[in-house]
């Protein structure tokens, strides 16, 4: 009889603490969840725009190199893959640089925050601000386990749990108490610890790039923009246009909230962690991935439609949004290059100011609508709205630039350089990729093995 399987399936025995970072430890008690979690190491599935394979976004679309000129993302940016790779990927990416005894990483420790269950452990040990402080190599030997059980679960009850302070603090500043969230809301809020737009607030505590979510004025793209504008915040100054730029990072939760699924109470877990039955027990599939690789359990329980039709629905929404995202991207490249031409032709700060704010706002909208990768399905109408307004603002910038360039004696189209490949685009913005790559290789071959060694010694003593 299969029903009995359920009874003997496991014997809960938690002989470890809330801050146990090793998924295997938790997994021993929950083999179904652990085994399915482990499948996030699979990198085979590729959908039309997403999937678990690594996609070199800059190679696919070299215009992004120009959009991010002067910022780390122009060095390397990949479409994200499974949780299993979170730590590996943050080490591998050129953005974190190649720290060693004499060179520091260009990134702060805050970058570890969303990559590992070692994070709550360390925050518990050293304190939140202390954790964020300093450059990224500081915790290299501490953060080694990829995203896992302790990030989302309570050790005693296995209930969902918010482990990251940034989300709790953001709720507090909005006057909401996250501990009052319903169970169903928690099935999305655990994801909202990481799949959200964020910035590093350097004014909260002197010298600490404090992880903060820009939600104080509301959760829309405009509310966050206003928030940043009011505090004069910018992530970097664009190398070509000199615009004070914002980087939008995966506002997955925010855009999801504006879609019809959220409106109807469908949670992230409903689609990305659907139930699965095995041995007479329904459990939560921890193979978090594109639902298009699992239409039967995710979509089809709610939608009795053939799988290929549901997939076609997703693609058709993505196609319709991407069409205009593409246009917007072209306009932004032009705007940056034209702004550079204006500076080169002698424009002054005052003449450029309104133009640069337009560029900032237009690119913010572009980034906001693509960075989360799921938005054009999660909320196609809202995403379309954002892209539309982005196109309008980018073109306003270009109208002003045309007028200014004419004033400066250059009344004709500005030539756009050849940026048809990643390599050409990176050369155009003046990146020395050879050095960056070889330094990284060196770092991965020497520093990282030391970190791992140190960590395994430490963990062996738990």
């Amino acid at each position, binding site marked *: 009889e299969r029903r009995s399987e359920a009874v003997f399936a496991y014997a*809960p025995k938690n002989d470890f603490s809330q801050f146990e970072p090793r998924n295997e430890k938790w997994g021993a008690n929950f083999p179904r969840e652990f085994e399915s979690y482990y499948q996030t190491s699979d990198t085979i599935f590729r959908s039309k725009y997403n999937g678990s394979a690594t996609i070199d976004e800059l190679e696919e679309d070299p215009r992004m190199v120009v959009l991010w000129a002067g910022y780390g993302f122009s060095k390397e940016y990949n479409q994200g893959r499974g949780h299993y790779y979170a730590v590996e990927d943050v080490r591998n990416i050129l953005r974190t640089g190649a720290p060693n005894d004499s060179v520091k990483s260009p990134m702060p420790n805050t970058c570890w925050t969303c990559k590992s269950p070692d994070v709550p452990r360390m925050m518990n040990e050293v304190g939140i601000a202390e954790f964020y402080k300093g450059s990224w190599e500081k915790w290299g030997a501490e953060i080694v386990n990829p995203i896992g059980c302790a990030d989302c679960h309570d050790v005693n009850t*296995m209930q969902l749990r918010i482990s990251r302070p940034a989300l709790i603090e953001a709720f507090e500043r909005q006057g909401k108490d996250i501990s009052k969230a319903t169970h169903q809301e928690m099935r999305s809020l655990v994801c909202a610890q990481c799949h959200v737009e964020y910035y590093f607030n350097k004014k909260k505590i002197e010298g600490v790039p404090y992880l903060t979510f820009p939600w104080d004025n509301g959760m829309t793209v405009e509310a966050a923009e206003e928030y940043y504008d009011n505090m004069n915040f910018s992530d970097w100054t664009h190398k070509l246009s000199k615009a004070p730029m914002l980087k939008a990072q995966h506002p997955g939760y925010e855009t999801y909230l504006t879609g019809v699924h959220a409106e109807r109470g469908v949670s992230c877990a409903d689609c990305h962690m659907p139930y699965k039955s095995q041995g007479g*027990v*329904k459990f939560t599939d921890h193979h978090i991935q594109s639902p298009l690789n699992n239409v039967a359990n995710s979509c089809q*329980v709610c939608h009795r439609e053939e799988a290929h039709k549901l997939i076609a629905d997703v693609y058709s929404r993505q196609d319709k949004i991407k069409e205009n995202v593409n246009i917007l991207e072209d306009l932004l490249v032009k705007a940056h290059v034209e702004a550079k031409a204006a500076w080169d032709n002698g424009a002054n700060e005052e003449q450029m100011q309104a133009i640069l704010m337009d560029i900032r706002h237009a690119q913010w909208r572009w980034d906001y609508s693509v960075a989360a990768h799921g938005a054009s399905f999660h909320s196609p109408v809202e995403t379309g709205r954002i892209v539309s307004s982005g196109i309008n603002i980018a073109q306003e910038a270009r109208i002003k630039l045309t007028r200014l360039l004419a004033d400066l004696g250059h009344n004709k189209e500005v030539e756009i350089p050849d940026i048809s490949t990643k390599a050409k685009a990176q050369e155009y913005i003046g990146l020395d990729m050879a050095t960056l790559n070889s330094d990284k290789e060196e770092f991965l071959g020497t520093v990282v093995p030391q970190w791992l060694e140190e960590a395994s010694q430490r963990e062996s003593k738990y």
Partner: protein
Amino acid sequence: MSILKKILPPDKWKIPVIIVSAILLGLFFFLFYVSNASSYLSDDPKTCVNCHIMAPQYATWMHSSHREWANCNDCHVPHNNVFNKYYFKGKDGMRHASIFTMRAEPQVIQIKEEGHHVVQQNCIRCHSNLITDAKMNTIHGDFHSDRTDRTCWECHREVPHGRVNSLSSTPNAKVPLPESPVPDWLKEALKETKK
């Protein structure tokens, strides 16, 4: 005795009250009979279709995997104890019967809050093995309630009635025709008079 006194009307009202009560009782039985309200006492799904209004639900259930396992009352009537079962049946049955007879039924029937709760409990009753797990319950205090805090058909939207919920959504479905409450002799007699 004192209670009876309070309930019984003053003497001078006795006759009228008896008459009115008799009329009400008569009407009640008439309603009960004409609307086939007695069918609520049975477990046979065919009896629910005594109201053509139930036809879409019957037809969709007929085509569902539940047909072999669960009849209407398995889902729509409480099964926690016998009293509750018949109390609920009687209450619901009389309300539906009255609405039907008075032609006050809405075009699109929607399950009421109370009935909704009853169905949910029945889903859980049959599927409890699958949805909750004895071991999980022991460490995870809220596991059972977490697994059952949304209605099952929020996800299983087609179970068992499909999604289109209108009186007219299954126009050609074969539904057992209700037996007429008009006796055959009366029908014959009526035919005669027509000639």
